[in-house]
C-alpha cells in the first residue's frame, strides 16, 4: 500500500529550470546534427546514407536506455512503495515506446535504399519491434487497471520481466538471423563518423531525459489533481 507521501505538484522554480534544460537539449541536438553532417566525409559509394546513422543509432541507444530506467524505477517502487518511483517508470516507458517507434521508422528508411525493401528481419530491427510490443503491453496494463496500487504493482512486474527479456530476445533473434544470412550490420563506423555519432548520442540523451522529466512532472500534477479531488469528495461528503 503506498503509504508514501502523496506526490505533491512540482514547484514553479523547478519547472523553469527544466524548461531551460529543454531549450538547451534541443539546441544541442540541432548543433550536433549540423556539426555531424558538416564534418562527415563525402562518401564514395553510399551517397549520404551513412548520415541516417546520426539519428538511427542514437535513437536505438535511447530505446535500450529507457527500458533500463523502467526496470530500475519499477524495482525501486516495489521496494519503497513510493508513488513517485512508479510515475517515473511509467514516464520512462512512454518515452521508450516513442523512441522504439522512431527507431523502427528510421530502420525502415535505412533498409529501403540499402537493401531495396522496407522491412528486413534483421536482428536489431526485429528485436526493436519485439521491444516495442513489450512496451505496448506495459502501457496497456497501465491503461486497463484503475486502482492506483494495483496498476503500479502490475506494471512494475510487467516492466521488470519485460526488461529482463530484452537481451534474451536480442540473442535469440540474432541466432535466428545468423542461421540464415551473414549479419547485415552497416559497415564499421569510419572514425570521421564517430565524433558525429557520439555528439548526437549525447544530444538524444539530453532530449530523452527532458522528455521523461516533463512527462513525470505532468504525471505528478495529474496525481495531485486526483488527490485534491479525492480529499474534496471526502470532505464534501461530510458536509
Amino acid at each position: 500500500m503506498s503509504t508514501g507521501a502523496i506526490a505533491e505538484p512540482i514547484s514553479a522554480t523547478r519547472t523553469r529550470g527544466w524548461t531551460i534544460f529543454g531549450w538547451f537539449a534541443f539546441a544541442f541536438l540541432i548543433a550536433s546534427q549540423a556539426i555531424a553532417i558538416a564534418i562527415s566525409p563525402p562518401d564514395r559509394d553510399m551517397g549520404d546514407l551513412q548520415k541516417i546513422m546520426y539519428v538511427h543509432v542514437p535513437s536505438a541507444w535511447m530505446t535500450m536506455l529507457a527500458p533500463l530506467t523502467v526496470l530500475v524505477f519499477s524495482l525501486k517502487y516495489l521496494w519503497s512503495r513510493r508513488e513517485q518511483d512508479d510515475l517515473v517508470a511509467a514516464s520512462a516507458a512512454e518515452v521508450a515506446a516513442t523512441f522504439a517507434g522512431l527507431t523502427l521508422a528510421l530502420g525502415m528508411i535505412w533498409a529501403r535504399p540499402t537493401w531495396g525493401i522496407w522491412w528486413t528481419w534483421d536482428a536489431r530491427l526485429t528485436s526493436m519491434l519485439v521491444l516495442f510490443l513489450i512496451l505496448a503491453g506495459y502501457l496497456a496494463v497501465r491503461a486497463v487497471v484503475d486502482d492506483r496500487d494495483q496498476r503500479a504493482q502490475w506494471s512494475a512486474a510487467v516492466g521488470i520481466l519485460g526488461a529482463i527479456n530484452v537481451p534474451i530476445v536480442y540473442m535469440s533473434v540474432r541466432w535466428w538471423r545468423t542461421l540464415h544470412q551473414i549479419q547485415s550490420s552497416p559497415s564499421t563506423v569510419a572514425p570521421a563518423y564517430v565524433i558525429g555519432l557520439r555528439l548526437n548520442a549525447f544530444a538524444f540523451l539530453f532530449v530523452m531525459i527532458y522528455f521523461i522529466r516533463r512527462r513525470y512532472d505532468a504525471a505528478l500534477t495529474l496525481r495531485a489533481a486526483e488527490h485534491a479531488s479525492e480529499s474534496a469528495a471526502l470532505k464534501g461528503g461530510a458536509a
Partner: protein
Amino acid sequence: MNGTADVSAIDATDVARRLGTSWVLRGITLRVAPGEVVGLLGANGTGKSTFLRIVATLVRPHAGSLRVCGHDVRTVPARAREAVGYLAHLPGLYDDLTVRENLHFAAAMLDRRRADAEAALVRVGLERAAEQRVRALSSGMQRRLAIARLVLRQPRVALLDEPYSNLDAAGIELMNSLVSEWTGDGVAALIVLHELAPAVGVLDRTVTIVDGRLAPNVHDHQRHAGAMLRVTG
C-alpha cells in the same frame, strides 16, 4: 492464537475506500472486542461488504488504519489473514468437486486433518450429501458447506456477509448456535445483515453505515435480553 483480552479483535480507525473518485467508505471507526458479535447494517451500496473485505485483507484501505487481532493489515497482512474467517456472499466452492472433496481441499490448505473435515461436515449436517457434486446442491446447502469450511478454519475473527440469506430455519439455527459457540471461545464476529430478525439472538450490538461512516445505533441489545426479544421479535 493470542487470546489476550486487551487486544481487540477488530480495531478500525477512519478506514476509507474509494471507488474511482467517489468515496464508498469515508471513515469507519469501529472496535470489536474478542467474543463480541456486532451486526453491520446499512442500505444497499453503503459499502458494508467492502468494509468486510477490507477487514478480511482482501482489499486494501485507501485511508485510515486497521488492526486485526493486533496485526496491522498494512504492514503484516499475512498475520492478520491467519486470524480471519470470511463467509462471503458467493460460496467460493468448486462445482465439479464433491462436498467432501471441497472440504478435504480446504483441510489441506488449512493444514487440518481429514478427521476435522469429517467432523465439520457432521456439524453442519452435510454428511449425507458428502458425495454429491457441489453443482447439484441448493444454494442453502452450498452455504452450509461454506460454513463447514469456516468451522474447519476456527478463525479468531468471523466475518459473515449476510450469512442467513437462503438458509432455512434449521440453517439459521445452525448459524446462530455456531456463532454462540465461537463467541464463547473468545472469537469475535462481524455480521453484515439486511434484516435483523434471524441474528437477534446472538447480536451484542449493531452499527449502521450511513454516508460512508458509522452512525451510533439505537438497537443495543444485550445478548441475554436477546432471548426475550426473539420471543416477541
